[in-house]
């Protein structure tokens, strides 16, 4: 374990014992500069961090380091700068160079360079090759993943896995809605593992592609090659596993590969847009295996996290926006991070195009189309009912009257659901608009659809299309 690895491992522990705000404030840009005879010198970016780590977090650091190296007796901090160090894979090399600068002793300098140089040489030629095979995109790393309350657990679990392949959480199952960062986390594991040990065999694949490869191999009668190729992997990452639902043969093959890897303690990481229980046509034996390891979810980011994301992204683009404008975007674009990025890109483009500064007013205008909710656009219950009757080909009269035919009842439920969720109409008012029904009827409809949305693909599709149609007015 070299200094960088030791520090990464220690940070992983410290992160779990203090709040995320404190962690990111005080441990950002820190590194171990030297570790000799049980004396560890930690490089920190400024005097405040030095005081704080020495006085307040001393015991945490000490305990965390002792877990990995029990010969550590003393910890001290010095201020050093790595501002110039670019993020990403080269970072570790750079910090080593910094260490070399700091330590004037020629011996140390040589020791470091000799150890590091062959490693660097081995890494570079291998890198493009490996990237082609393992599908890992070096853009996604833990460093540029923004931590919030919603993804804290998932991130910590992924990081822990990357430090300790196959030993702690196996399999690791990550789920969460679209655009919340599942793929980023999954790819980060791959990148982190590669950065620590480039010789590891890693495979990142979407379940869709997995199925396609399997079909190809069946057609070319190379199923055995396919299996043995997968069984030789150290870390298998399967993204969007919910697409395996309903594909029996693929599930079967996957099951065998999964078992083979699991038995020899190889790490498996899986992501999906819902928990294993909610994937309808997943075979029970797969489901129980998914549930056997660690399950972590990624929720929607809270407003603080969204602000942090916007700030980071705009800084990446060298784009300055004032606090008010950022807050406005964060408060109005809520659902996922991709939308958030989209909104930011839209503003950057609009600013460049109109040669204007991103003031609050300008931002409001630029985003008016994206974020206007139904109420603002003057959409009323009538629009919803009309859209439903068109979509299901049921007359509005039928929709409102007392008929209990299955199709009509379903359409009616969706109508009630949309009026509630999009226009925020009160339950009694919904009831009265549907031929004087009781408010509990509306309540029941809302809850029923809400529940089905989670499990039923068809319902989800209908609601999404209808929502688009309503807003297309």
């Amino acid at each position: 374990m070299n200094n960088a690895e030791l520090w990464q491992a220690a940070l992983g522990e410290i992160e779990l014992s203090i709040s995320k705000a404190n962690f990111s404030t005080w441990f950002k840009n820190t590194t171990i500069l030297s570790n000799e005879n049980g004396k560890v010198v930690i490089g920190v970016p400024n005097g405040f961090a030095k005081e704080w780590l020495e006085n307040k977090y001393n015991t945490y650091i000490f305990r965390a380091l002792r877990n990995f190296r029990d010969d550590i007796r003393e910890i001290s901090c010095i201020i050093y700068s790595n501002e110039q160090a670019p993020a990403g894979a080269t970072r570790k090399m750079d910090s080593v160079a910094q260490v070399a600068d700091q330590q004037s002793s020629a011996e140390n300098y040589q020791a470091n360079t000799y150890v590091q140089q062959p490693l660097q040489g081995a890494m570079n030629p291998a890198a493009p090759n490996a990237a082609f095979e393992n599908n890992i995109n070096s853009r996604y790393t833990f460093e540029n993943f923004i931590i919030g309350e919603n993804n804290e657990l998932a991130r910590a679990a992924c990081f822990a896995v990357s430090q300790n392949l196959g030993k702690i959480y196996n399999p690791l199952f990550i789920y969460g809605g679209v655009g919340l960062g599942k793929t980023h986390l999954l790819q980060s594991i791959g990148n982190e593992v590669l950065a620590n040990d480039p010789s590891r065999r890693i495979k990142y694949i979407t379940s869709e592609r997995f199925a396609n490869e399997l079909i190809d191999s069946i057609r070319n009668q190379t199923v055995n090659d396919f299996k043995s190729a997968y069984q030789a992997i150290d870390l298998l990452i399967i993204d969007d596993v919910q697409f395996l639902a309903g594909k029996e043969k693929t599930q079967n093959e996957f099951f065998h590969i999964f078992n083979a890897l699991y038995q020899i303690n190889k790490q498996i990481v899986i992501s999906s847009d819902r928990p294993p229980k909610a994937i309808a046509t997943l075979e029970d034996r797969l489901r129980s295996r998914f549930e056997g390891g660690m399950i972590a979810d990624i929720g929607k980011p809270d407003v603080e996290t969204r602000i942090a994301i916007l700030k980071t992204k705009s800084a990446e683009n060298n784009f300055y926006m004032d606090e008010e404008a950022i807050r406005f975007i964060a408060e109005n674009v809520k659902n996922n991070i991709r939308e958030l990025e989209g909104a930011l890109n839209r503003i950057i483009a609009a600013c460049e195009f109109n040669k204007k500064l991103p003031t609050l007013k300008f931002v409001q205008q630029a985003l008016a189309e994206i974020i206007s909710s139904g109420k603002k656009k003057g959409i009323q219950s009538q629009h919803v009912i009309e859209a439903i009757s068109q979509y299901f080909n049921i007359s509005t009269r039928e929709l409102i009257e007392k008929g209990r035919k299955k199709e009509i009842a379903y359409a009616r439920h969706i109508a009630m659901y949309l009026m509630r969720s999009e226009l925020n109409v009160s339950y009694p008012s919904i009831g009265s608009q549907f031929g004087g029904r009781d408010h509990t009827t509306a309540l029941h409809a809302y809850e029923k659809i809400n529940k089905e949305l989670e499990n039923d693909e068809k319902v989800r599709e209908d609601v999404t299309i209808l929502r688009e149609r309503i807003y297309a007015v």
Partner: protein
Amino acid sequence: MKLTCTQENFKKAIYSTERVVGKQITLPILENILLETDNGMLKISATNLEIGVFLKIGAKIEEEGKITVPARLLSNFVNNIQNVGTVSLSVVDQTLHIESGSSKAQIKGLQATDFPIIPEMEGEFLFSLPAQEMKEAIPRLMICVSLDSTRPELTGLNFVLDKLEVRIAATDSFRLAESVVTLIKDNAQAYDLFMEKTTSIIVPLNTISEVFRVINPETQNIKIGIEESQIFFQIDNVRIVSRLINGKYPPYQQIIPETFATKVILSKEDALRAVKIAGIFTHSKAGEVKFSVNAEDKEVLVQSKAEEVGENKTNINAEIEGPSVEALFNPRYMADGLQAVSTSYLALLMNSGSSPAVLRMVQGEKKEEMLNYTYIIMPIKN
């Protein structure tokens, strides 16, 4: 905590510290200021983790203690209360009770132990700079500091330490300002020792503007100490701590020409007016104003032209030594330089249309150049 202090001191202390407090999303306690009793005094601290500020004021202390409260709230309250002479503070259950005359307030606080520790100086102050000279110099320099974060070393002021003086410079690579300030050695031995290690430091812009704000007309000296890539300022009773910018400042001395062929003495007002007018007749960003120095007619012709707007010319009478010369400048940079001049006449020194031009202040009957401030501006080459 229980104490009483004068309203004037308390108000001034809050005013001096509250400004470094920034909007912090990650760590809410940074929006607070820390009040604590310290050896019979009240110590007030604030920080944004780049800059830390603290000061002590006299107080009658009945009970020791400390608390942090939101800075904006406290300062808004203190600024609006009636002036009656004294303020009493007390802490009960994480709440600060303030009483002054007829006003009482209770401000909910956070635990003081979570407040960042502001680094203390271990050694002694190395040197001092005269406060009033600095008060004059800082705004003249700040106009040139680069805001481009891709070159962090240009986002601060460069202090070059010498035996008798300190040269302070700022540049955004289009123009450069340099002031020379007298040095007062507090601790000659330590200073000489420090100079052996390094003679050039870069202080962030925000830190300097904070220092500038704290200087008041009665301030005599600014004490400065440097340790472990941090700088400490002591201005009256206020202590400011900041990180230094790491990096190598460009060796700007090389670009200042040693001799100038043409020297033009101009009235500041005339020149500034001419440049401002010329600025109107240029494209918004890529504007250029042409200075034609005519040695025979003893005048300077300032002109500009924009295809779609129109053009203008202004003649300024001037004293000219040396040959005629022409050069193009960015009107905004030229106006900045002229505005920094505080004397009624100034010297414009030029060699040719492609080498840097220099502005200096002049004084006295003979209009002698003053060497304590130099503004260098790169001409636009055709």
